[in-house]
Every structure is written in structure tokens, then in C-alpha cells.
């Protein structure tokens, strides 16, 4: 019984994570300018990572892999947003202004 509940919970987390990754990928392709695209891509980094890794952790019971996954999760949660910040900051410093109505035309 417990196993079924854990399996179901893990399944729900993995599906939700996949949905976030999908939305992130879609946004990175479809949103109009750099900053909005980056915002979408960072969804994959943050929510996608948390949900999918938690889902896998539930699959691996309580064992060494769980702790390794926890370490990976911690690493990604620190580095992902930092990389997003560095990217956005570099774009800002190189003169790309975040304007609400700006639409980049890709040639």
C-alpha cells in the first residue's frame, strides 16, 4: 500500500517536472526577447530540477543514491540561478535593455 502511494507520488512529481521542462523549452523558443526567454529557460533549472530529482529520489527508497541525488539537487539549486543571474547581468552590461515592448527580430 505504502509502495503504491510512493510510486504514485513519484509519478506525479516526475510528470509535473516534465511539464515544467516542456514549458521552459517552449518558452525559450517562442517568447519574444532575450530576458523573457531566459526567464522561461530558468524554469527548467529551478522547478524542473526540483520536481524531477525529488521524483527519482522517491523511486530509489532510502539508500546511497538518494543522498547522491540530494547532493546533485543542492549543487544544481546553487549553480542554476547563479548562471541565470550571470547571463542576465552580462546581457544588461553589454547594453541589452529589458523593455516591455521590445521584440527582437531574428534574421
Amino acid at each position: 500500500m505504502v509502495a503504491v502511494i510512493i510510486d504514485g507520488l513519484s509519478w506525479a512529481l516526475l510528470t509535473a517536472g516534465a511539464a515544467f521542462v516542456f514549458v521552459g523549452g517552449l518558452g525559450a523558443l517562442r517568447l519574444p526577447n532575450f530576458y523573457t526567454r531566459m526567464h522561461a529557460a530558468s524554469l527548467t533549472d529551478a522547478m524542473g530540477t526540483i520536481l524531477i530529482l525529488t521524483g527519482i529520489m522517491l523511486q530509489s527508497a532510502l539508500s546511497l543514491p538518494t543522498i547522491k541525488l540530494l547532493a546533485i539537487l543542492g549543487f544544481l539549486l546553487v549553480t542554476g540561478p547563479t548562471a541565470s543571474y550571470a547571463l542576465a547581468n552580462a546581457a544588461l552590461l553589454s547594453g541589452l535593455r529589458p523593455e516591455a515592448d521590445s521584440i527582437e527580430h531574428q534574421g
Partner: protein
Amino acid sequence: MVLLFAVFLLTLLVFTAVAIVRTSDLFVAVMLSGIFSLLMAANFFVLDAADVALTEAAVGAGITTVLFLGALALTAERERVVTKARWLSLGVVTLMTLVLIYATFDTPRLGDPNAPVHQHVAPWYLQQTPALIDVPNVVTAILASFRGYDTLGEVFVVFTACIGVLLVLGTRTDDSVLRQARRLDTERQGLRHHLIPRIVAPLLIPFIVLFGLYVQFHGDFGPGGGFQAGTLIAAGIILYALVQGESAALRAVPRAALMGLVVGGTLLYGLVGMAGIVLGGNFLDYAVLAADPVAGQHLGILLIEAGVGMNVCGALLLIFHAFAAR
């Protein structure tokens, strides 16, 4: 399921390769080649080649991208447009492609136990490793002991490449580099005005170096070894250089120390080989290094892996500094 993953990854690889060829923006090409390496690493992992996957991810996706970016900073960012028709190169490429496709008809099925590669010396290695060397990771046993001569050659390739890059890009004394770096630092200060990377990177660097050391000394038991460990440690120090500035990294690990690592690592490998002769065995025969042959093998592998790690770490950092100093 594995087949599905392999087909998916290989398809992505082809897309990435075509995109690299098609783009004329070299910056984009560098980023794509990083993605290519990452996909290749995943592919190696699917094929259960964890050692190679680790190397590909660390070298291909990590350090090579940084070195390419360093090279790009010295040259133009756009590809030179060649307008005249290149029928000769097109012909050669077409011919090569056809020959390669023809060759695939003769390659054995993936994982076929009757494939020549599984019939030649591989069974002997798998059978004899527990008795002769007694390390769980047969890849390390082959790389460091059975085929130690080849690995010595690889170390000399890295050594020679490092000398070549330093000759081309010029070596300057620490003083002039430091002075120039200080001048640059007052203008740009590395990433000093970026507060968050400056806080986060020092948190990560000890863990990166620690993981590098783990990969170095755990190579007998799991995936890893000197090549991967040297790259990881070099990556940690390059991260430090990117965040705190070139001169800070050179203050932490001076150029002389890096030279010492490259030369010392290569020498250590060669000397372990010579020690085998002196103690009455063959070149690179570790069995004579200790009273017990298996303990001798363990000692020999530990020493030559350390030599490889030192050599790779020092060479990568010297090449990085050579680019950064320009």
C-alpha cells in the same frame, strides 16, 4: 529502451553537428560544440563507458569550451566567408562519407559477443585482472598497467601540446603577466562587480577540487583516474580565475608551480617505469615495486595516475593562462 535513448541521442548529435557546420558565428559554434560533447558523454554513458563519459564531459564540454572562448577572444568572432566553389573538398567529403557508410556494413551488431573486439584480448584482461592486479575497475587496470605504455605516450602528447602552445603564444615572466593583469584588473576586475558569482563560486571551488581528488584516488574502484581528475581540478582553478581575476589565480597557483606539475607529472610516470627496470622487472612493470606483486601493481597504478593527474592539470592551466595573458 537503451536503443531508443541511443537513437534519440545520436539524432540530436547529427542535428548539432549540422548546426555547427551551418553557423557562421564562431561563438555559437563553440557553444554548440560544448553541447555536442555533452550529448556524446551521455551516449558513452548509455553504452556503459562511464570512464570515457566522465572524460568527455569534463574535457569536451568543460575545459575545451573555455579554451575555445579564450582563442575566440584573440581572433574574430565571425567565420571568414569563402565564396569560391570548393568542388575538390566536396568531392573528398562525399567519397569519405560513402567509404564510411560502406564500412558500416561490416561492423558487428552493437554488443555482439562474437565481435572481434570481444574475442581478442578483452577476455584475457577480464579474466586476469582479479588475479594480477585486483582492482574492481578493469578499465583502470588496462589503462594504467596492461597498456601503461600507451598511457605514457598520451601523457607525452599532453606534455608536447603544452610546450607547443606555450611556444606559440609566448611565455612571459610572472612579473610582466602580473603587471599586465593588474592593469586589466583595475579596468575590469574579473567579475568583481558581479556580487552573486563572487559569493557562490568560492563556495563551489573546494567541492570541485575535493571531487577531483576523489575521482583521482577512486579510479581503481569506480570511473575516474588521472585524466578526469586533472581536468576537474583545473576547472575549479579556472573558475577561480574567471571570478576573481587572472592575477588572483596566478597568485594562488603560480606559473612555476604549474610548470612543476607538468614536468613533475611526466617525470613521475617515466621514473615509475624506470624503477621497474632498476628493481629487476620490465619497463612499467609494477609487480616488482613491492614485495607482493599485487601490492606493487596497486602502488604503481596510484603513482602513475598521480603523474597523469599532475600533468593534465598543469598543462590545462598553463594553456588557459597563456590564452588569458594575451
